[in-house]
């Protein structure tokens, strides 16, 4: 164990812990903008700086490994001044249009501006004016709001293994873009959207939808596959308007394109909400209850088995079911019907 003293508090941490992790273990907090504990430390935003005895300059706590006997200060006049300057610099190159920004209320930069009380800005000057056009179907990229924290680039590379975006240009012109500045053309998992601390990346589906007032959040499980990712539905009235996932669940907040963006069916007019049965050959489908439908199927299948033998029926199961459901399904066919004619869509 390593013993540190942070802001006067003694804290013991395991070897390999960063100073940021150590200070959080001690119940302390420093602001961060480019840090996500699920990703490798980056050290770009310079907000998590701390003073360490014996070091001439402040260092970023996210990238500094804790060492035994380290004496750390997370707050001082100097640190406050440096952090405030950093926030002010970020705001000096930001549209500051929170009134109409989809991320208002859910934006780290906005929160920092509030915490540091930045109303006047000493550094007003040129602001970036990137074109906002990206014709992809899922993700709105507003580069003028990008703070270059690199979270999107890193999640795409480190978690998704896709590398659909990267840094380009230098100096004030530096930006995050898909290759050659073309439209984003990836698998649209939206992980980048989920880690963006500002409104630079947003889901097209929830653009213009209510941000907070009247929005009800419901924790549930994604039904797309057997992974059963935890998701949080945001609904307004009887409409689902957005899907998120929090970082501390079993899927660590990561979702795929279907789980994150594939929710429009919920409120679709074409969605089936009850079973339908075609009672007469050539007739229309008619609404039925689940009891009716299940009895109907059981009756028909039993009759077929009776007449043509067990191997005249077969079951094809779905990847959207859980392992347990798939297990029960094959049991139904093997034991219930007595046939091995059982297969799964994942084979195709």
């Amino acid at each position, binding site marked *: 164990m390593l013993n540190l003293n942070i802001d006067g508090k003694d804290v013991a941490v395991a070897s390999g812990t960063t100073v940021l992790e150590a200070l959080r273990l001690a119940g302390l907090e420093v602001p961060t903008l480019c840090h996500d504990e699920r990703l490798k430390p980056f050290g*770009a935003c310079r907000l998590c700086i701390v003073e360490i005895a014996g070091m001439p300059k402040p260092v970023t706590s996210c990238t500094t490994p804790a060492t035994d006997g380290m004496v750390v200060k997370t707050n001082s006049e100097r640190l406050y001044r440096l952090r405030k300057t950093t926030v002010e610099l*970020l705001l000096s190159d930001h549209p500051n249009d929170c009134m109409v920004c989809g991320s208002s209320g859910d934006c780290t930069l906005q929160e920092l501006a509030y915490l540091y009380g930045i109303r006047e800005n000493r*550094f007003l000057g*040129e602001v970036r004016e990137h074109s906002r056009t990206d014709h992809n179907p899922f993700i709105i990229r507003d580069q003028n709001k990008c703070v270059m924290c690199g979270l999107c680039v890193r999640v795409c590379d480190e978690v998704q293994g896709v590398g659909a975006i990267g840094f380009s240009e*230098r100096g004030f012109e530096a930006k995050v873009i898909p290759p050659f500045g073309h439209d984003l053309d990836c698998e649209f998992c939206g992980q980048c959207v989920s880690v963006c601390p500002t409104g630079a990346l947003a889901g097209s589906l929830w653009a213009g939808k209510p941000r907070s007032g009247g929005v009800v959040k419901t924790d549930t499980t994604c039904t797309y596959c057997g992974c059963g990712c935890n998701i949080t539905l945001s609904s307004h009235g009887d409409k689902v308007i957005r899907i998120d996932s929090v970082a501390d669940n079993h899927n660590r907040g990561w979702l795929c394109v279907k789980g994150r963006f594939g929710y429009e069916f919920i409120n679709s007019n074409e969605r089936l909400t009850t079973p339908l049965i075609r009672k007469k050959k050539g007739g229309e489908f008619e609404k039925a209850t689940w009891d009716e439908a299940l009895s109907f199927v059981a009756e028909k299948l039993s009759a077929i088995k009776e007449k043509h033998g067990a191997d005249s029926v077969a079951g094809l199961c779905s990847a959207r079911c859980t392992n347990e459901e798939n297990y029960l399904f094959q049991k139904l066919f093997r034991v219930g019907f007595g046939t091995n004619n059982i297969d799964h869509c994942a084979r195709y």
Partner: protein
Amino acid sequence: MNSEIVVSVCMGTGGIAAGGDMVMQAFEKEFEEAGVSNAIVKEHTRLHKVGCRGFCARDVLVDISVGGIISTYQYIQADMVNRLVKDHCIGKRPVTEWMVGDDYHNFHDSQTKIVLHDLGKIDPESIDEYIRVDGYKAAEKALTTLSPAEVIDTVKRSGLRGRGGGGFPTGVKWGFCAANESDQYYIICNADEGDPGAFMDRSVVEGNPHAVLEGMIIGAYAIGASIGYVYIRAEYPLAVERLHMAIKDANERGFLGKNLFGSDFNLKIKVKLGAGAFVCGEETALIASIEGERGMPRAKPPFPANKGLWSKPTIINNVETLANLPHILNKGAEWFAAIGSEKSKGTKVIALTGKIRNTGLIEIPMGMPLKDIIFDIGGGIEGDKLFKAVQTGGPSGGCIPQQHIDLPVHYEGLASVGSMMGSGGMVVLDETDCMVNISKFFLEFTQSESCGKCVPCRLGTKRLLEILTRITEGEGKEGDIELLQELAEDVRDSSLCGLGMSAPNPVLSTIKYFRHEYEAHIKQKKCPAKVCSKLLTFFIREDMCVGCGMCVRACSVNAITGEKKQPHKINNTLCIQCGSCFDACKFSAVLKE
């Protein structure tokens, strides 16, 4: 009697730019023609190219040695070669009026040359010439008679510190690296010299590439690296070409490759071309670039010596650091440690540029006073103007004013006045340079070269530049100096890498020493050095103007009127202060204030 005729032509980039190629061809042609009738010329002439000899201001420099007596000629052009061959080479009558004078010898005599010792003497494209000056002896000595630990110890005792800017003790760094358990170690030569006005590393690689390779062999042996990289800018085509040539020749002679000097030590050296990003000189960005990633620095620790290229222990040494090593091994650590000052041992190669008479490449013992460099070696300010300041360490350094002219030039000395050694660039400024404008120039560079990763560097340098720009354009406001200082300090203290940490140095040092110039720009809206055009008013002195009309033709906004042969006038409401009339007037009748 030695009747050999040896002609050496400077064929460094400076020499070639001044016409070295053409001079070389002219000699070839003249010798060929003369050789038909003159047996001595045919049999005994040797024409060879040499690297940079330092005094670039006098290029093309040519040495002619007849019978062992060497004469050096300056400002030689192709059309002068005919006479040199006829009179000197054949007629044995040196052309004295084209020869260098005392000032040329003064320039060289006050220097101490270790790294530059063989530059300008040997043909950089010939491995035999390098071997002739004891080349590869030091590597052989290290590999066959010393253990890696003994090599590290020798370098530690020599006191050699990194010449790329950091000034970290080389031997100590090697010790850190060698202490790691690993299946692979790497050595990297950092030849990504990017400071405006710097050409030290370029000249060394162009003029003596084998010395750099030999240094790499010694370093690689010390830390146990079997693979080395030279990271060199693609903008240095001649250096790259000669480096490739040197690696090929060294491989053929068995100085690189397998079982060097009969030992079981192997070393393969690869060349990686940099694409011109200044930040790739920073070691973690350089490593990222070699790995095929975008050149962006990362936080240290881990230091490259522990976790570098492909996460293996890696040593990155600058060109000049490496080129010192063969001499240290050959002559001993004590010999090296006796040169220079207490904490900065050895010499430093400096690219001397700016408003100085003798621009060029020099090498001084550490601790030489600034004054001696500028006035003795440099020959003082061009055009007898007044010395104002010297910018050392490139865009990361600071401006040192007249009051510190006695300052010893070593790591500590330069740091004590808010500047730095950096890689060794020295830009001399005179009374016609505006310090606010100089500061703006360097910020333009660092801003456009910032990788954009960290906020203080990406946006802080941008805002510094904007404030400086508005001051030079007459839009400066009360409080701007304080704002510049505050922001500069914050950028310095919170940036990720050396680029951002040092980018504010030009701003802070010029405010410290030339605050009055900033105040004049902001309060009086005047540029004391008469450089910032938006703060100038142009007018024509009636008694000097002959009415030639040159200024009228030069003016792009038709602001100048006047009858032929009558004094002209500038309409200041139309004038855009471009300065074209000032440059065009042959009678000094256009004045600016």
